[in-house]
C-alpha cells in the first residue's frame, strides 16, 4: 500500500493498531473546560447541589457520591444526558477536543454520534456497570472509533479496561472457548491480559471499540465521570447504527457536497 501519511500520523496509527488505543494530552483545553463546566452547571441545577468555586471542579465531581442518594443516580444521569445533548455547542466542543486525533486516525470527513453518552460510576455502585463487550458484536461498524473523555482523573477500577489486540487475536480464533456462557465468565478468562487505562482530565482517549472492553465496580473512593462518543468516516460502511438515526455528518467536504448533489443531464 502506498503511504503518503506524515511521520506523526504514521506513529499515531501504529500505536493505535498495536495498543488498540491512543491517549492524547490536549494543548488547548478550552473545549474540555466548556464540557466540564456545562456538566457541572447541569449537576448543580438537576441534583440541587451548590455550584463549586473556581478550581474546585475536580473535587466537586470526585465527591459527587457524597451529595446524592444512589437510588437517584440513573434519574440524574438521564436528565444530564438529555440536557447536554440539547446543546449544540456541547457537541461542537466535544468534536473540537478530539478533532486533531480523529483527523489522523479516521479522516477529515466525519460522522459523529448524535447523542453523547455520559458515564457516572460512584464508588461501590453495581447498577452502572458495562460488562465486557465489543461494540461490533452488537452491531457497530468496525469503521468506528470511540472518543472517550474523562472529566476527572481515572485510574485502577475508576477507569475502564481494554483487551490489547495481541490477546484479542487468540479470543477471535477460539471465541466459544473464551466466551463461555456469560460475560462474567468471559471476563475471568481474559482478566490477566486486560489493560486498565490510566488517564487524566486534560487528556482524551480514542480506542478501537471492536476490542473487548468494559468496567467493573469502582472500588476507589472517588466518582468517575466520563463521556463517550463514536466517530466514523462519512462514506465508510455503517452497521446497525445508521446515518440519521445514530450518526450525523459534521465535516462534509465540498467535493462530497458537490458529488451528492450531482445528477447527470437528462437526454429527452
Amino acid at each position, binding site marked *: 500500500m502506498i503511504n503518503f501519511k506524515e511521520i506523526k500520523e504514521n506513529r499515531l496509527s501504529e500505536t493505535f493498531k498495536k495498543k488498540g488505543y491512543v491517549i492524547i494530552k490536549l494543548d488547548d483545553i478550552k473545549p474540555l473546560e466548556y464540557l466540564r463546566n456545562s456538566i457541572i452547571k447541569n449537576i448543580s441545577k438537576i441534583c440541587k447541589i451548590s455550584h463549586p468555586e473556581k478550581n474546585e471542579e475536580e473535587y466537586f465531581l470526585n465527591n459527587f457520591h457524597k451529595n446524592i442518594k444512589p437510588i437517584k443516580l440513573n434519574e440524574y444521569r438521564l436528565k444530564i444526558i*438529555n440536557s447536554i*445533548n440539547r446543546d449544540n455547542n456541547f457537541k461542537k466542543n466535544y468534536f473540537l477536543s478530539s478533532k486533531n486525533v480523529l483527523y489522523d486516525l479516521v479522516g477529515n470527513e466525519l460522522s459523529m454520534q*448524535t*447523542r453523547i453518552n455520559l458515564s457516572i460510576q460512584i464508588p461501590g455502585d453495581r447498577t452502572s456497570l458495562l460488562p465486557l463487550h465489543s461494540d461490533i458484536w452488537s*452491531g457497530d*461498524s*468496525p469503521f468506528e472509533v470511540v472518543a472517550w473523555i474523562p472529566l476527572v482523573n481515572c485510574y485502577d477500577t475508576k477507569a475502564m479496561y481494554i483487551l490489547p489486540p495481541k490477546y484479542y487475536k487468540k479470543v477471535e480464533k477460539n471465541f466459544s472457548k473464551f466466551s463461555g456462557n456469560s460475560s462474567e465468565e468471559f471476563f475471568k478468562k481474559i482478566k490477566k491480559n486486560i489493560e486498565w487505562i490510566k488517564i487524566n482530565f486534560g487528556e482524551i482517549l480514542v480506542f478501537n471499540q471492536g476490542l473487548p472492553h468494559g468496567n467493573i465496580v469502582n472500588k476507589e473512593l472517588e466518582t468517575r465521570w466520563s463521556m463517550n462518543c463514536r466517530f466514523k468516516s*462519512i*462514506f*465508510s*460502511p*455503517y*452497521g*446497525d447504527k*445508521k*446515518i*440519521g*438515526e445514530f450518526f*450525523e*455528518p459534521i465535516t*462534509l467536504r465540498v467535493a462530497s*457536497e458537490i*458529488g*451528492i*448533489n450531482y445528477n447527470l443531464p437528462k437526454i429527452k
Partner: protein
Amino acid sequence: MKKVKGYMSSRSFMGERVPQHIQNQIIRNYCTQNNFYYMLSAVEYAMKNSFLILNQIIKANKEISGIGFYSIFQLPENDILRMLLLKKIIAKRIIILFCSEGFIVKNYKDIIRVNTIWLIKKKLKYSLTNFDYFKKNKTKN
C-alpha cells in the same frame, strides 16, 4: 404547549419497515420528553409515492403547530419533491419533528441539514453495509 400531529407510514421507507405501534411509541415519547402536546397520528396510504395524508395534515393546519414524523426517511425519495414539501411545511409556520433522529426542523438551514443526510443515505446505497462487509470477508477467508 405546542400541538403536534403524528405522521406514520404503512409502507417501508428506504428499505426499512417499522411496525406502526413502534412508530407511534417513538413519536409519543419524543413529544413527551420535549414538552409537545401529542395529538394522535395519521397514517399515510401504503401505495408507493403517496403523500396524500401528509398533504391533508398540512392543509388542515389550523389546530397544529407541528408534525411529528417517525423518521426523516418517510419523506419523498425524490430530491425535488422532498425539498418542496419541507419548504411548504415551514412556510406555513409548522415545525417538523423527526422523532427517531431527534431533529426539529424550523427553518431553511434545518432543511439543508435534513437534506444532506438524505443525499448521503442515497449514495450509501452503493456502499457496503456491515453485513455485506462481513459476508465478503468470510468468502475471502
